[in-house]
């Protein structure tokens, strides 16, 4: 993508020494416990986890495959470079690691004593959760994308704030 012959960039890539995993040099598989394993350079690593570099802006590019003790096995430039079944396997793993229900409809938000009580329809069903006011618990993760962290550390996301109805937006706006 950037190897366009530009000397500065090649230098940068050489100095960084990042190992990129491709469909030719890496083989992903699901372990019997539904975790992820990867075989590359004749070495098998199990389990490994998929870390997104940009979980909010683009989930399909620059994925870092890491072991439990945060050692990087390699990076994937783009999920689309892999066969569909491998991509689907990696996406399943990502969905587990970055489990964040998307709020489709805000039913009610009530505020009392420094906490707000949310009721919302999400991709994981109807959810009721409590959010502590202040401290960046309701914040923009990207433009137009609102990330809400409740008291237990569960994360909810409103993927497109401008898609909310006016009534819903009024309730959410006061919590920003």
């Amino acid at each position, binding site marked *: 993508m950037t190897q366009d012959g530009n000397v500065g960039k090649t230098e940068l890539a050489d100095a960084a020494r990042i190992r990129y995993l491709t469909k030719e040099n890496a083989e992903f598989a699901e372990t019997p416990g539904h975790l992820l394993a990867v075989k590359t350079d004749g070495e098998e690593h199990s389990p490994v986890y998929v870390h997104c*570099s*940009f979980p909010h802006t683009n989930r399909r590019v620059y994925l*870092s495959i890491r072991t439990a003790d945060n050692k*990087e096995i390699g990076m994937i430039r783009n999920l689309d470079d892999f066969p569909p079944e491998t991509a689907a396997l990696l996406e399943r793993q990502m969905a587990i690691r970055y489990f964040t229900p998307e709020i489709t409809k805000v039913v009610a938000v009530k505020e009392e004593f420094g906490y707000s009580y949310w009721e919302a329809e999400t991709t994981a069903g109807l959810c009721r959760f409590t959010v502590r006011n202040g401290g*960046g618990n309701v914040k923009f993760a*990207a433009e137009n994308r609102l990330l809400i962290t409740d008291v237990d550390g569960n994360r909810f996301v409103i993927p497109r704030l401008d898609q909310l109805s006016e009534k819903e937006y009024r309730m959410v706006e006061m919590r920003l």
Partner: protein
Amino acid sequence: MIYPEEGRQVCPRCMKKHAIFIRLLSLAGKYKLSLFFIVLFMLLNSATGLVIPYFQGTVLFDQALAGTGTFAGKIGLVILVIIAFRTLSLLFGVMFGIMIAKLAANVAFDLKSSVFTAMQRLSLDFFMRKQTGHLMTRVNNDAHELQYFFVDGMSYFIVNAMNIIGIAAVLLWMDWRLTLICLIPMPLVFWLVRKAFPKLWRLSWRRHRRVSALNSIISDTIRGSRVVKAFGKEQMEIGRFQRANDAFSGAEQNFNKMSGTVFPVLNLLTQTGGILIWAFGGWKVMQGQMSFGAVLTFVNYMYMLYGPIQFMNNIVGWWSYCMAAAQRIFEIQDAVPDVAERPDAVRLPDMKGDIEVNNVTFGYEPNKAILKNVSLRAKPGQMIGVVGHSGAGKSTLVNLISRLYDVTEGEIRIDGVNVKDISMASLRSHIGIVSQDVYVFSGTIAENIAYANPDCTTEDIIHAAKIANAHDFIEKLPDGYDTLVGSGGYNLSGGEKQRLSIARAVLHNPKVLILDEATASLDTETELQIQEALDSLVKGRTTIAIAHRLSTLRNADYLVVMDRGKVVEAGTHDELMERKGAYHDLVRKHDEALKMKEGVIA
């Protein structure tokens, strides 16, 4: 004339109030059209308003009720006419209200951005001298106060002046003798204004100074709250704040007391005119020289005159705010950057990185030299290490090379060209600095790394982070490179911030890399990892590295030892060790310290 600050083009005493006023007027040129319409609607508003007292007095009482003239017996019609004019007046009022609201926001916006832009143009020195609180007040409050000048001041002044002239003309036409009577208290009013207002002006300036000092303390304490808590100095800070708060409150009280006395007295004096009219008018009605309706009309007009006259009184107060604010804003706009680019500055599209420092002497303040006769040479691709005690002038030296300040004597040449002749853009694009105080802007981690080069690709950002050894900790964060940092965002540790700033410099990809204690706040192991990555990157680049930890400089081609602003020794590691001078001493102490550390661990 002695200028309070060198390089400040306008000295405060030469900046006459009327000069400021004229300069402000020139700024208003941009809003000519909206101001014209505002004044037009205001005039229509008062013209329609001006008719009402005539209908309420003369027409209603002397014609409709008395049964004479055109409107004899037509009370309903007269009432309708009054209602119609009131409605018209209201409509025009709403119209100019809306236009003013729009203009006010635009003026404030323009002024704020112009002050902010003017500030960005200034050199580092300016920001080092001023307190943050003062500067923040300037951008926010002063711009806000100037908005009054354009919006309330200008338009209301024109309209009220017209009102005064119009009403005075009507009054004179109705009865010139009565009019003169109501002007009796005027000389006293003028005398009071001339006496009291200069003092009010001074008090308002004092109040501004005090509120700025107060803001400085607030911003200081909030930003330094860690230090305050660590030393348990809350009470002392409260005391410090109390004193400033007290001083401000005193100034505020003085100002309010003064204006609280002056304005009611002025009001009373102007209203005495009205009482005089009732007395003389009543006497004339009883004598049959004047009708009751005419006196009522006259008094109604008189009362309409109070608003504009009071406004003229108040405008002096506004005027003083605005002029003081304008003065401060113009001061920033006029300030000449200490480090200015020459008009015929040379652009260097490619820099080799040949740095020559010849007999440089420099001090942040005149006659207090920090660097004395410093010379050094870095050939393209070399790594120069600068060592020395704290306060030896190491950071000052690199500030001069990147031209954050200008040398007092001597010269610095890059590729044989004096840095003063090189355009700022080429200088900044070829020199990268990683300094000991790192700053993280509000935004995502990716944005922070891409700060110097926002158009770079995602891959570049990741590579730079990997080189700076930041990639692993970033990937571990739940939001990865999308994590928001800076005020209100995720709290990075000192070492993490340092690594971000290294990544920033790596991505900037400069020909000359200045590392000012770049790895000082990292542990030895992380430092080693970054050093390895940097080593591969510094190839082909001129690097000037400052370090306390001598191990950081193990790869330096050449070492410069500084002490109290002078270069005391220079040479390679081996040469300097053989000489057994200052460097040898430093290495010995460094080793002793390391041994002590080992002893503690063991």
